[in-house]
C-alpha cells in the first residue's frame, strides 16, 4: 500500500512554500494595467459620444442598424474567430485593401484638385522616372562592370531627368544659406529636365489618358509582378499582361461610363487603380487557392447591412443621430458657427506635413542606422566614439518635443529664413523630433538579421555595400517600416513644436505648397479647446479628436499588418 496522503510533506499542502508576494505582484500588475486601459477606453468612448451624439437618434434607428449591421457582422466575426481563422484574415484583407486604396485615391484626388500637382505634371514625372530607371537598367546590362560609372548614372540619371541638375527648392535653400554666409557664389546652373521637356510638348494626350498612363500603368505593373512572383508555375509575362490589361481597360472606361453615372472620370480612374484592381487581384488569388473563401462574405455583409439599414431608416422615417462628425465636417473649413465648422484644411495640412516628415526622417534615419550597424567600427577609439553617438541618440529620443520646436524655430526660420509656420518647417522640425526614434528602431531591425546571412554573403565575395543592399536591408525592411510608421503616427499628433514654429491656430485655406501656412489637426484641436462656444469645445473638438485618432489607428494598423505579413514569410 502507498503511504497515506497526510504524510506527504514535499507536496506543499501545509503551505510551507509561500507564493503570497508573487500573487500580490501578479494581481497588482493586472489591476494597474486594466485600470489604465479602461480609463483610456472610457475617455475615448466619452469623446466619441460627444462627436457622434448617438442619443439624439430615434430608438428605431438604432434597432434597425443593430439588426441589419451589428448582428450579422458580429456573428460572422465570432464564427471566423472560432471556426475559420484563414477566412478571418481574408475578411480583414478584403475590407482593408479597398479602404487603404480609397484613402490613397482620396489623397491623390486632393493633391490633384488643389492643383498641388497637375495631371500633366504627374504624367511628366512618371515618364521622367520611367526613363531614368530605364537608363539605369540599360547601363547595368550593357556595362555591368563599370561600378563607378554606374554610381554616376544611378544618381545622375534621375536628377537630370526629374530636376535638371538640381531641384529649384534645393537651389533656393542653398542660395539662402550662401547669402547668410556672405559667400559670393550662387547656384544657377540648370538644364531643362526631361520632366519639363515632356510638359512643354504642345500635344499632350487627353488628361484622363495621361492619368491612366501615369498612375494606373505603374500600379498595375507592380501588382502584376507581385502576382507573377507568387505563381511560379505560369508564364510571368502572361500574368503581368493580364493584370495590366485588365486594369487599363477598367480605368479607361471612366471617361465614357463615368459621366453617365455621375462620377468624375478622375475619381473613377483613381478608385479603380488603388481600390478595385488590388481587391480584384487579391480576391482572384483567394478563389484560386480556395483558402478562406468564406471570408469574402464579410465585406458584402458589411456594405449590404449599411445599405439595407439606410433604406429601412428612410422608409420608416427614423431620425438619425445629430452627429458632429459628418461629411460636411470633413470637407469644410473652420467657422464661427459650430454647425458649419470643418476640419478640411488641417487634414490636408497634416497629410502634407506627414510627407515632409517621412521624406526628412526616413532616409537620414535609415542611413544613420545602416552606418552604425553595418559600417561603424566595433572596437578601438572609433568603437568608443560610436558607443558615445549611440548613447546620445538614445538621449535625443527623450528630449522634450517643445525643445525640438525651438530648434526648428532657430534653425529653419531664423538661420535658413524659411517662412514661419509653414508646412516645410513644421515637417522638418517634427522630422528631427522622430529621427532618433527612427534610427533606434531601424537599428533594432538591422540587428535582428542573423549574422550567418552576412557571413554567407561576405563568403561569396560580396562587398559590404552589396551585402547590406541584397541581404540585410530586404530582411530588415519590414521592421524598419514598422518603426517608421509608428514614429510618424506619433509625430502627426505632436502639438508643442507647432506652437513654437508659429503654426496658425486656424487656417482657412488648405495649403497649396510646402511653403504655405500649415494648418495641422492637433493645432486646430488645441485652438478649439479654448473657444468660447460650448458646442465647439465639446462637439466640434470631439469630432476632430476622433478624426485624428482614426488616422493614427489606420496607420498603426497598417504597420501591424505589414509586420505580421513579413514575419510569416520570413
Amino acid at each position, binding site marked *: 500500500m502507498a503511504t497515506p496522503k497526510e504524510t506527504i510533506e514535499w507536496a506543499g499542502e501545509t503551505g510551507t512554500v509561500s507564493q503570497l508576494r508573487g500573487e500580490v505582484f501578479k494581481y497588482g500588475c493586472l489591476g494597474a494595467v486594466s485600470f489604465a486601459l479602461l480609463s483610456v477606453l472610457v475617455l475615448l468612448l466619452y469623446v466619441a459620444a460627444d462627436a457622434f451624439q448617438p442619443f439624439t437618434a430615434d430608438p428605431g434607428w438604432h434597432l434597425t442598424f443593430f439588426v441589419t449591421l451589428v448582428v450579422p457582422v458580429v456573428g460572422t466575426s465570432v464564427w471566423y474567430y472560432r471556426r475559420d481563422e484563414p477566412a478571418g484574415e481574408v475578411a480583414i484583407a478584403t475590407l482593408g485593401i479597398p479602404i487603404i486604396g480609397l484613402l490613397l485615391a482620396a489623397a491623390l484626388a486632393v493633391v490633384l484638385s488643389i492643383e498641388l500637382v497637375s495631371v500633366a505634371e504627374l504624367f511628366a514625372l512618371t515618364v521622367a522616372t520611367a526613363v531614368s530607371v530605364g537608363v539605369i537598367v540599360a547601363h547595368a546590362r550593357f556595362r*555591368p562592370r563599370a561600378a563607378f560609372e554606374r554610381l554616376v548614372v544611378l544618381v545622375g540619371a534621375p536628377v537630370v531627368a526629374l530636376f535638371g541638375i538640381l531641384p529649384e527648392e534645393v537651389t533656393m535653400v542653398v542660395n539662402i544659406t550662401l547669402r547668410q554666409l556672405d559667400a559670393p557664389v550662387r547656384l544657377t546652373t540648370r538644364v531643362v529636365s526631361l520632366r519639363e521637356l515632356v510638359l512643354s510638348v504642345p500635344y499632350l494626350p487627353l488628361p484622363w489618358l495621361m492619368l491612366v498612363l501615369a498612375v494606373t500603368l505603374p500600379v498595375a505593373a507592380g501588382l502584376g509582378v507581385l502576382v507573377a512572383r507568387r505563381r511560379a508555375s505560369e508564364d510571368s509575362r502572361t500574368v503581368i499582361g493580364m493584370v495590366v490589361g485588365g486594369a487599363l481597360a477598367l480605368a479607361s472606361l471612366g471617361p465614357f461610363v463615368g459621366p453617365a453615372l455621375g462620377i468624375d472620370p478622375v475619381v473613377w480612374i483613381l478608385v479603380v487603380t488603388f481600390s478595385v484592381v488590388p481587391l480584384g487581384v487579391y480576391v482572384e488569388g483567394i478563389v484560386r487557392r480556395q483558402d478562406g473563401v468564406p471570408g469574402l462574405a464579410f465585406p458584402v455583409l458589411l456594405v449590404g447591412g449599411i445599405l439595407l439599414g439606410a433604406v429601412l431608416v428612410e422608409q420608416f422615417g427614423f431620425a438619425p443621430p445629430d452627429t458632429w462628425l459628418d461629411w460636411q465636417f470633413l470637407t469644410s473649413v473652420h467657422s464661427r458657427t459650430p454647425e458649419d465648422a470643418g476640419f478640411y484644411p488641417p487634414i490636408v495640412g497634416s497629410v502634407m506635413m506627414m510627407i515632409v516628415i517621412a521624406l526628412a526622417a526616413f532616409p537620414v534615419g535609415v542611413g544613420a542606422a545602416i552606418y552604425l550597424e553595418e559600417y561603424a567600427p*566595433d572596437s578601438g577609439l572609433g568603437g568608443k566614439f560610436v558607443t558615445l553617438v549611440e548613447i546620445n541618440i538614445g538621449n535625443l529620443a527623450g528630449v522634450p518635443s517643445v525643445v525640438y520646436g525651438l530648434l526648428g524655430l532657430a534653425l529653419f526660420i531664423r538661420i535658413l529664413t524659411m517662412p514661419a509656420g509653414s508646412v516645410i518647417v513644421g515637417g522638418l522640425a517634427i522630422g528631427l523630433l522622430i529621427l532618433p526614434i527612427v534610427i533606434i528602431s531601424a537599428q533594432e531591425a538591422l540587428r535582428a538579421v542573423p549574422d550567418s546571412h*552576412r*557571413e*554567407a554573403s561576405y563568403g561569396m565575395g560580396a562587398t559590404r555595400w552589396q551585402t547590406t543592399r541584397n541581404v540585410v536591408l530586404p530582411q530588415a525592411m519590414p521592421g524598419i517600416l514598422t518603426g517608421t510608421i509608428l514614429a510618424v503616427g506619433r509625430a502627426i499628433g505632436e502639438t508643442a513644436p507647432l506652437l513654437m514654429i508659429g503654426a496658425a491656430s486656424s487656417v482657412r485655406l488648405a495649403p497649396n505648397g510646402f511653403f504655405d501656412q500649415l494648418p495641422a489637426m492637433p493645432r486646430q484641436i488645441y485652438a478649439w479647446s479654448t473657444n468660447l462656444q460650448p458646442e465647439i469645445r465639446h462637439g466640434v473638438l470631439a469630432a476632430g479628436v476622433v478624426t485624428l485618432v482614426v488616422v493614427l489607428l489606420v496607420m498603426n494598423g497598417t504597420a501591424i499588418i505589414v509586420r505580421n505579413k513579413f514575419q510569416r514569410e520570413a
Partner: protein
Amino acid sequence: MTNEELTTDGRTESDESTYDSASDANADPDGEPLVEQSISVEGSDERSTPTNPETVIESRGLDVFYGETQALQDVSMEIPEKQVTAMIGPSGCGKSTFLRCINRMNDLIDIARVEGELLFEGKNVYDPDVDPVALRRRIGMVFQHPNPFPKSIYDNVAYGLRLRGHTEDLDQVVEDSLKKAALWDEVKDQLQKSALDLSGGQQQRLCIARAIAVDPAVLLMDEPASALDPIATSKIEDLIEELAEEYTVVIVTHNMQQAARISDKTAVFLTGGELVEFDDTESIFENPANQRVEDYITGKFG
C-alpha cells in the same frame, strides 16, 4: 554586428602541460590502424591520388591573435590542389580560425590580427594590395549551419553570379550547380520556392551549390555536416568526394571518421592553436608520428 559568433573558435586557452611532449617521436610500433581500417582507407584508395599534386595554398609561420589571445601558433602547411584536406582537433584549437584565414573572413572581426604569410597560388593574401572581396570570389565557403538567404532557391544559387554582374546564362549555371550539388532532381520543379522551405540537408547542399556556382578555385567547409542527421551527412560526404575532382576542398570537422573517410590529407590541431601533425590521411590514422595525435585519435583525450 556582434563578434560572439565569429570568435567562438580559437579563444579558449587550454593547459598544454598535461600532455607529455617527450613521447612525440614514439610512433605506433606495429603500425596497426587506430581507426577502423575499412573506413579509413576506403575513400582514399578508390580515388587514385595524384602522386605529386601542386600546392595551391601554403601557410608559413601563421600566427593569429584575437586581442591578447593567440589562436594560431606558427602554422605552416601546404594544401594540395584538387584534393580533400581535413582539419581535425578539439574545440577551440584554431582549425576554424585557420580556415577563415584562407579567405580572410577574420577581417570581419575587428580584434583579429594575423602575422606570417598565407600564400594562395603563390601570392600572400595578406599583402596590402590584395582585396579580400576579390579573394573571396576565388575561394568559396560553406558554413557550419546551413545559411541560405531567405530568397528563392534560384536566387540563392544565382547570388554570387549577380554580385559579379553576370546576367546571361543564369538558368544554365543554376541548373549545372544544382546538379553538381546533387540537389537538382529534388528541386527542379520548385526553383522559385523559398530556400527556407527545404530540409536542413537540402539547405546545406543548396549552400554548396551557391558556393560552386561561381566556379571558385578552393572550397572551404567549416563543419558542413555537424548540424545534419546521418543520412544528410552521408550525402554531403559523397558530394565532397565528387567535388574534389574539380575543386580543392578544405574541410574542418569534429568527426574523425568523417575525416578518415573523405580526406586525402589531414591536419591535426591541438589546443593552443598548434598544428601538431600534417600528413596523408592514411598515415595520420594508421601510424601517427606524434603521441598526442595518437591519444586524440584513439579517444584518450578530446
